[in-house]
């Protein structure tokens, strides 16, 4: 067993970059701060990939041989076991219960560190060009470093409380980065919204942690899972004790899932994600597409044995919430016109997909752990193509100074490389073979087919819609009406654009922006060929690979229909989309206004919470709490006004009081002692 202690460097290097840049970046190395941050993440990414190689191939006995040999069934007995690379007690409540800072390595965490550090590296490189000339260039890279540190820490956490700490840290860095342009009121509002909504969900997470760890009497993931899934243990309390007719275990898991749903922008806690697009585009690519928003999926995957063991109703909830989010977000994405918002809803939809896949677990079914692998697989491929989509959008926004699709059209001649990369990413997300999204999506659909036919139908429809809205975006940005001369400066471009010199207009994008596109595009093409069913599985043992045969025909055909539909409507500038929208009428408006979910929230907070809770609370504060204080002060003031006359400044008055006191005491003593 090789020593994995060096893994601790993977999160710590970005942290070091954050500290150095945060403290000195503004003053001493403004220009070099991007390079420093990128270098730190580069080393982290290198170490992550090395770790993955060591964990999956060099170190994994029988399975490694199986993969190398390419055999279908990879040797018996092997499998990937979790490795605790490092464990340091941090806060010890009692001998059995302590918060340890530990680093856990198992297939999903190894996969996640690769994804996080790699995408973070790409985003760092991209930002070198994108954020150039920005006022707070150093601060930006410092925040990116903080985020990368927190996210890597989150995925490596071996302790449920440790994960909570990092969970809040990513929320905090997300807040900082969404509100990066703090002089824009919309960005500030979006940052606050993201923070409050996720914080609200985290409350559920915290209560869930407390319930689970109270009954398992440990905070360590491995022991927690082991103790909670043992039927014969003395933990009967958690399954028999119930609240509102649902066992406490289910409640705990459900609340943990609420936390995950908040972070992963699942319905109905998704409202913050589209607004979060106010942040700089590389941030959207890193945080709000590839890494942070999948933290919820990761959390459920981390506790998956407990979810699988508990009442199936909990996983049903996961399944339906995932399906509903995927479907609703796909519909909304079809109507949005802001390029980043389309991508945001698409992210939400894909995360819904991942959750749906996690929810398909069947204890008895043949496809038991299929959903788990499919979900992780989709997470992996999604990170590549979604980050690529966002970075392409970054190039477009950088060039066009606008987020609106109607300001664009015919960009394929202006941005040929971006066009190619965007097309690849669109094909991948639409699930067209042989791009990566196809494989992961097929797995998810297969898992859904085994679990629930209704959800399968929804997922299938969603995959068609995905193809439609992605190609709607693609055609209206790169084809559509002929290219107009870039002159329309709209002022609400994505920051930093103002600084650009005229001469730069001739170039598509700086080299640092193109390089990540190419690398991610390769990832989006090739990631699908990684044999995930052998590497990342529910129980660590490789699964038999299942052929993608006839089953794939339906989804691919539907995706093609979506693509053709989009081509029909948006390939050439025409009145067709408007007519189509008019034909749909109310349904279109409903989707365009995002099903009025934001309005519902506003109604609930402004009308119900403010009026029914806020006002009485304010009244109590003003008249009862403050009143008590005022009463005390008034009484004191009155009394002092009454007795201050005694302090007359006349010596003989004092003498009189003195003698009166002595006389009084004398009388008292005489009276008492006789």
């Amino acid at each position, binding site marked *: 067993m090789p020593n994995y202690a060096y893994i601790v460097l993977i999160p710590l290097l970005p942290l070091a970059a954050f500290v150095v840049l945060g403290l000195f970046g503004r003053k001493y190395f403004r220009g070099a701060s991007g390079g420093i941050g990128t270098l730190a993440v580069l080393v982290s990414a290198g170490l992550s990939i090395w770790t993955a190689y060591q964990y999956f191939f060099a170190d994994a006995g029988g399975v490694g041989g199986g993969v190398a040999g390419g055999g279908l069934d990879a040797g018996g007995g092997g499998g990937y076991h979790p490795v605790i690379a490092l464990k340091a007690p941090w806060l010890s409540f009692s001998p059995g219960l302590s918060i340890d800072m530990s680093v856990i390595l198992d297939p999903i965490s190894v996969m996640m560190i690769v994804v996080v550090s790699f995408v973070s590296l790409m985003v760092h490189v991209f930002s070198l060009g994108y954020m150039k000339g920005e006022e707070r260039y150093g601060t930006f890279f410092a925040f990116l470093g903080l985020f990368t540190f927190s996210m890597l820490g989150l995925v490596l956490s071996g302790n449920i409380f440790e994960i909570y700490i990092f969970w809040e840290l990513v929320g905090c860095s997300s807040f900082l980065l969404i509100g990066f342009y703090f002089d824009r009121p919309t960005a500030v509002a979006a940052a606050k919204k993201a923070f409050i909504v996720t914080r609200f969900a985290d409350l559920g997470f915290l209560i869930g942690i407390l319930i689970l760890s109270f009954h398992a009497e440990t905070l360590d993931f491995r022991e927690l899972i082991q103790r909670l899934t043992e039927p014969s243990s003395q933990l009967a309390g958690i399954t028999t004790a119930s609240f509102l007719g649902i066992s406490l275990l289910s409640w705990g898991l459900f609340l943990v899932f609420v936390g995950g749903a908040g972070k992963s922008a699942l319905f109905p806690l998704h409202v913050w994600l589209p607004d979060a697009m106010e942040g700089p585009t590389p941030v959207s690519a890193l945080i709000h597409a590839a890494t942070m928003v999948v933290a919820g999926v990761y959390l459920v995957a981390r506790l998956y044995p407990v979810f699988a063991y508990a009442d199936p109703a909990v996983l049903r909830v996961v399944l339906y919430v995932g399906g509903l989010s995927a479907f609703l977000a796909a519909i909304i994405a079809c109507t949005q016109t802001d390029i980043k918002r389309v991508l945001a809803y698409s992210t939400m939809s894909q995360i819904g997909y991942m959750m749906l896949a996690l929810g398909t677990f069947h204890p008895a079914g043949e496809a038991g752990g299929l959903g788990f692998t499919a979900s992780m697989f989709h997470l992996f491929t999604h990170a590549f193509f979604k980050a690529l989509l966002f970075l392409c959008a970054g190039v477009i926004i950088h060039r066009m100074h606008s987020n609106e699709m109607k300001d664009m059209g015919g960009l394929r001649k202006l941005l040929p490389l971006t066009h190619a990369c965007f097309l690849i990413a669109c094909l991948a997300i639409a699930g067209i073979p042989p791009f990566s999204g196809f494989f992961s999506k097929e797995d998810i659909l297969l898992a859904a087919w085994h679990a629930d036919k209704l959800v399968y139908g929804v997922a299938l429809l969603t995959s068609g819609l995905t193809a439609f809205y992605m190609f709607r975006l693609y055609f209206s940005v790169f084809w559509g009406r002929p290219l107009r001369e870039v002159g329309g400066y709209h002022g609400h471009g994505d920051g930093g654009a103002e600084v650009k010199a005229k001469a730069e207009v001739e170039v598509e994008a700086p080299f640092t922006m193109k390089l990540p596109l190419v690398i991610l595009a390769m990832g989006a093409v090739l990631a699908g060929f990684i044999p995930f069913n052998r590497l990342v599985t529910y129980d660590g043992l490789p699964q038999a690979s299942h052929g993608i045969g006839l089953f794939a025909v339906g989804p691919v055909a539907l995706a093609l229909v979506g693509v053709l539909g989009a081509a029909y409507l948006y390939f050439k500038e025409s009145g067709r989309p408007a007519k189509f929208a008019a034909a749909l009428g109310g349904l279109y408006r409903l989707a365009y206004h995002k099903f009025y979910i934001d309005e519902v929230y506003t109604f609930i907070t402004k009308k119900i919470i403010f009026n029914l809770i806020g006002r009485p609370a304010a009244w109590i504060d003003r008249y009862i709490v403050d009143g008590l204080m005022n009463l005390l002060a008034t009484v004191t003031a009155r009394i002092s006004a009454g007795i*201050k*006359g005694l*302090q*007359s*400044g*006349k*010596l*003989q008055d004092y*003498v*009189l009081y003195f*003698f009166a006191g002595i006389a009084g005491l004398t009388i008292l003593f005489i009276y008492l002692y006789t």
Partner: protein
Amino acid sequence: MSQVPLSHILILSTALFFIGMYGLFTRRNMITMLMSVELILNSVNINFVAFNKYLYPDKLEGVFFSLFIIAIAAAEAAVAIAIIINLYRNFRSIDVEDAGEMKF
């Protein structure tokens, strides 16, 4: 020679005490007030000596106590006169009515 009874001496000291107190209350001049305080102290001295003599003739505590009080009275007079001088420097007067500024 028949002894003076204790009550006579106590009446004397009480009279002295109240004369001192009366002076303390009625006089506005700091020097006379100081003199009144001396009267009060001396009435106490007389009490001490008288009780010692009449109740515990074989002991000397009362006598010593009065000696202490005399010493302290001397020190107190010194301090009081210093205060009075300062008062005079500030107010050009040693009338307590004029120095009524230390109030609320």
